[in-house]
């Protein structure tokens, strides 16, 4: 992928169009899936592990209670810990500023008001797009050898992982047009673990799919476990997104944005000779 743009230039063609289209379509899908998913979660803001809900003993819950002074407080419970999260989780201000019981706040859900059916409509529309987009990307990336050539780390790269981590800690980035080993590993985790996992746990929540593939329930330990793993995977994808954005900002946002929009990426001049 390191074709020289033109003689003497240090701009290379880094991302092919299937990769760019997949990236942006994926970004759009995950945005809508996240916010509509939080709307769905708000219909029953508690998580459990196992085949069914153990209503008296959730693993996580976002609840509201009325204090002695009659004000409404939000509370987040994880295992045996509880935190006061008034204003953000469990209870948050509505349009006119009144504190109301609500799992996630209005600015994190689609629609912003409480509407489970519309949340589901958004969620399943973008779930289909995510899956179709992912399958098309899979076919293209196998055909154009994107996975093998750009994502699979070499033994030498894996051996030098300690060095790459130190360089990242010092915010020293090499712009040679290739992914470094940490990038490769995090993209592999997202593409081959987190995204398939969030789709599979989503399907395990479908009572229809459970009759087709009851083994899904065995794999994830039951429908309510699948729901919790779906939620945890969401949190991991959000974590990836935050680190991804920070890395783009640290590595040069204009160059990085240009490469994922147009494909063209400027490499460090001193690397020009050695790179291709």
């Amino acid at each position, binding site marked *: 992928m390191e074709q020289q743009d033109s003689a003497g230039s240090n701009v290379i063609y880094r991302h092919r169009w299937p990769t760019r289209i997949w990236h942006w379509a994926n970004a759009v899908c995950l945005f809508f899936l996240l916010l509509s998913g939080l709307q769905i979660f708000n219909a029953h803001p508690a998580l459990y592990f196992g085949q069914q809900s153990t209503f008296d003993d959730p693993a996580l819950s976002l609840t509201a209670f009325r204090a002695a002074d009659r004000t409404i407080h939000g509370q987040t419970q994880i295992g045996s810990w509880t935190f006061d999260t008034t204003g953000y989780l469990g209870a948050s201000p509505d349009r006119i500023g009144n504190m109301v019981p609500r799992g996630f706040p209005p600015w994190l859900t*689609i629609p912003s008001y409480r509407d489970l059916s519309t949340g589901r409509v958004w969620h399943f529309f973008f779930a289909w797009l995510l899956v179709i987009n992912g399958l098309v990307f899979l076919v293209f990336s196998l055909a154009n050898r994107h996975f093998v050539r750009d994502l699979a780390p070499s033994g030498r790269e894996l051996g030098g992982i300690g060095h790459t981590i130190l360089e990242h800690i010092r915010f020293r980035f090499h712009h040679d047009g290739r992914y470094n080993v940490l990038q490769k590993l995090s993209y592999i985790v997202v593409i081959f673990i987190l995204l398939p996992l969030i789709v599979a746990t989503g399907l395990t929540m479908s009572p229809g799919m459970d009759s087709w593939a009851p083994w899904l329930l065995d794999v994830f330990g039951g429908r309510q476990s699948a729901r919790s793993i779906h939620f945890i995977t969401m949190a991991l994808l959000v974590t990836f997104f935050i680190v991804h954005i920070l890395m783009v900002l640290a590595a040069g946002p204009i160059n990085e944005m240009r490469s994922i929009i147009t494909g063209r990426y400027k490499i460090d001049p001193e690397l020009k000779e050695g790179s291709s």
Partner: protein
Amino acid sequence: MTLILTRRRLLRYGALGAGAALLAGCDGISRNPQARNFLQRAEDLTMAAQRALIDRTALAPEFSESEIIQPMRANGSRNVQDDAYHALFDSDFAGWTLPVTGLVEKPLALSLNEIRNMPSRTQITRHDCVEGWSCIAKWTGTPLSGVLDQAGVKPDAKYIVFRCFDTLGNALYYESIDMVDARHPQTILAYGLNDEKLGIPYGAPLRVRVERQLGYKMAKYIKAIEVVDDLSPIAGGKGGYWPDRGYEWYAGI
């Protein structure tokens, strides 16, 4: 310094403003019937995919007695605002019959005792509410397909409509399923829950179990069964109380 602060503030307000505009846009799309209908067409894809993939007789998972760990959680209406219903309940529905009408050769009027004496099926299954929770319980009833066979369903029949005693927000509850789900071996008219007679919170006298779909499809307090070829003339025309209010008619997901 001022420049940096201003720029930072500008960025922050810009981002907040863009975010607010985006979310307002999503609310606008959510409230626009055409846009919402477009998004909801994914439901057709889901139903087509599940119908193509899943064998029509594939069973929902069944569980063991030891997995019944708590009382069944009631979904939807937990009571019926109708004195006549309560009088019927108090007499164990003596004198009451379930009409099975519509596109059938022989309309039926079955008493609760007749239904209890028909072939029965007991299944320990997981009830999945659209809200996200699940609860395992043991349901006993008679397969709907036996009732339909007794009535003789006409070839042009497409849907089974369940009319209910309960009202939600002044509208009578109703639901419908197609013939694939109606003929499914686990689709039963349940009169028993966890070895007891079906109580009021759970939909006495009869509640249909449609184990491969979500809880709101499983009409409670069934008053009448109607076999039809078109759902559009009924109530809101979408085939159910919740489908009329924006929820999927096919709730296999």
